[in-house]
């Protein structure tokens, strides 16, 4: 490194290479990601978020929800499970046999062997595939997140800190708009020691009109007598977005619970 030019060329080459690798190549490869289909079906995946939910994504961004919430389910591996579906002619023997076998958390070979043992005794089985890992055991999803889950989102907000639970599938976990709104208005009304901040500023407290929109709040959080709490449009959009968070369809690259050959 004797000359300024030498330093410049070295730096240029180093940064250029990583730019080509991590900016250009992914733009070409991932940027061409297309809609796929749900495994063993012709349903398209993902579907575009409905209008209100797409607006809600921007509310999520503006309020920095991703500072505390991730939207990426992690998976350690997969495991097979053999489920008894028919006991055949000799139910007692078959079910005793099945009770004596290890039927969950199996490898493919072990699952096939168990299925064969039961089949030999006349029973019928189905073999299921499922993801394993802490996130899946916590009920945050059935499979790991994949790139196509985020296809229609801009900005994507995968998050990097779990100060709150993962929200990849919150739309399936808590599919009730009123629940979502109450939680946003007063997290402590739902989880006593919640460290989630209240987003009461997305709501309006106004003189009661008996509107259907008014939140049904538990005692201690309700508006004073004669008043009601109604969501602003931003809050409604945000709740619609949360309800649209459901990235759990089995895909070719992330399969689960499929009927495998016995």
């Amino acid at each position, binding site marked *: *490194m004797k000359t300024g030019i030498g330093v410049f060329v070295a730096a240029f080459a180093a940064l250029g290479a*990583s730019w080509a690798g991590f900016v250009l190549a*992914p733009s070409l*490869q991932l940027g061409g990601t297309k809609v796929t289909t749900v495994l063993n079906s012709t349903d398209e995946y993902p579907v575009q978020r409905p209008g209100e939910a797409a607006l809600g994504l921007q509310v999520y961004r503006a309020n*920095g929800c991703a500072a505390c919430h991730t939207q990426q389910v992690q998976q350690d591996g997969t495991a097979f499970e053999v489920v008894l579906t028919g006991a055949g002619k000799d139910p007692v023997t078959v079910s005793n046999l099945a009770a004596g076998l290890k039927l969950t958390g199996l490898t493919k070979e072990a699952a096939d062997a168990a299925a064969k043992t039961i089949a030999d005794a006349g029973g019928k089985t189905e073999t299921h595939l499922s993801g394993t890992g802490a996130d899946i055991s916590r009920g945050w999803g059935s499979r790991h997140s994949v790139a196509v889950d*985020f296809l229609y989102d801009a900005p994507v907000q995968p998050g990097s800190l779990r100060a709150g639970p993962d929200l990849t599938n919150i739309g399936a976990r808590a599919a009730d708009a009123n629940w979502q709104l109450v939680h946003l208005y007063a997290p402590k009304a739902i989880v006593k020691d919640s460290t*989630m*901040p*209240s987003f009461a500023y997305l709501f309006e407290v106004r003189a009661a009109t008996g509107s259907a929109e008014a939140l049904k709040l538990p005692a201690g959080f309700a508006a004073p007598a004669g008043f009601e709490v109604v969501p602003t449009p931003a809050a409604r959009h945000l709740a619609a977005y949360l309800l649209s968070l459901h990235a759990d369809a089995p895909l070719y690259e992330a399969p689960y619970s499929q009927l495998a050959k016995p």
Partner: protein
Amino acid sequence: MNPIDNKSPAACSSEIDASLRVPLLALFGGAALWLVVGLVLGLLAGLKFHAPDLLGACPLMTYGRLAPAANDAVLYGFAIPAALGVILWIMSRLSGMPVALPIVPVVAANIWNVGVLVGIAGILIGESTGYPWLEFPRAAAVLLFAAFLLIAVSAAATFGWRRQRELFPAHWFLFAALLWFPWTYSSANLFLTAVHVPRGMVQAVIDWWFANNLLFVWLGLAGVGIAFYFLPKIGGRPLASSGYALFGFLTLMFFGSWVGIPVGAPVPAWLPTVSTVAAMLSIPPVIAIAIVSLRTACGAKVVCFGGPFCFLRFGLLSFFLGSMLYLITGCPRFGHLVQFTWYSVGQTQLTLLGFFVMVVLGGIYEILSKTSGLELPFPKLAKAHCYLAMLGVLLYAVPLVIGGVEQGIRLQNPAVPFADANAAALLWLRISSTGQILLILGSLLLALNIFVMTIKWKIALGKSLFAAVTAPLPVTEVKA
């Protein structure tokens, strides 16, 4: 590289210092304010975990806005412009030249500060882009980019017209840094705030690429470059093992720029795999830089109770620790464990505040009185700042790292309810808030020193102007 300032053909150092007086006071003054602002915003964000509804009614003060605003105020408000000031000074000194185009950095400093103001305000009112470390809305990004280019041009011109031909290790690092930021920042912003944003996870990949190149590579290049200038200079002996420095420089650039895609990210598997390999290959440069620093600093007979040398040594130690903590998250097992925990927050703060900010502060305290031609108004407070900052960083960052590992272990065990994993982190967060308070106190001392100094300088300037013009001119035309 030590005694070049005395070599004959070069301009004398007081001339160089004087040429930088206005640009540096502008850059450092704004930066010092942003440091206070950023740390206070960070403290407010941290307090939310002890009292979630503190200031809850005010949308500007919601956690999801405060946290990125705090990070960006420290990084874009303090770290980058203050480092640019120090770099300008180093470039002039190494070139033996007064800074070229001194008006340019003054203009740039003002543009930069407006940009940061627009950016922070944008985040607080909900106009963040939503991409971590790139939250500033487009208008702010354009201002920052323009201001950076202006300063880089001024530094490059100073170098181009140099009277001192030799190239030092500090040069390599600082040059590369001057190239790195405009490229990564403009590229990431062009892709992510363009009209047709790339689809899906490409956005996240670009953001990770940018964040790594800023927080690991750029901070590394600029911070180590600054340290490699001041260590020998203050220590009074040349930089040890410059072969190691060259090795560290090249490998940091070539491998370090490929780190950053988290293990297990929902993207094609080759991306995190490449990052894992790059992270392992980036360990040697970090060690090489640590060896150079250690060998240069250890023999130096400098009594540094709280002086600039102290800042530098602590900074370099944090560089080593912070970088290692970062790179080992490339190991799949460990990476998975700490991935979504406070660990990475602590690690980032260790690198940003413990390494970079400390090195830059060392530089600022070293050159402040030289360039302004005035004594530091409160030298004792500068030393107090050193101790407050060191203790503050330790209390702020280290508990987050430890707490993050604990949180990770609990999150990995599905038998532990989520709320319990969360509660485990709260205790550590409490300690880290204490650290933040110490950091704020320290940054106030810096701001005090700079502002009193600026005022004194303005008064002195006014007096001399006044003396020069009173005789022949009517007083009404005197402007300070």
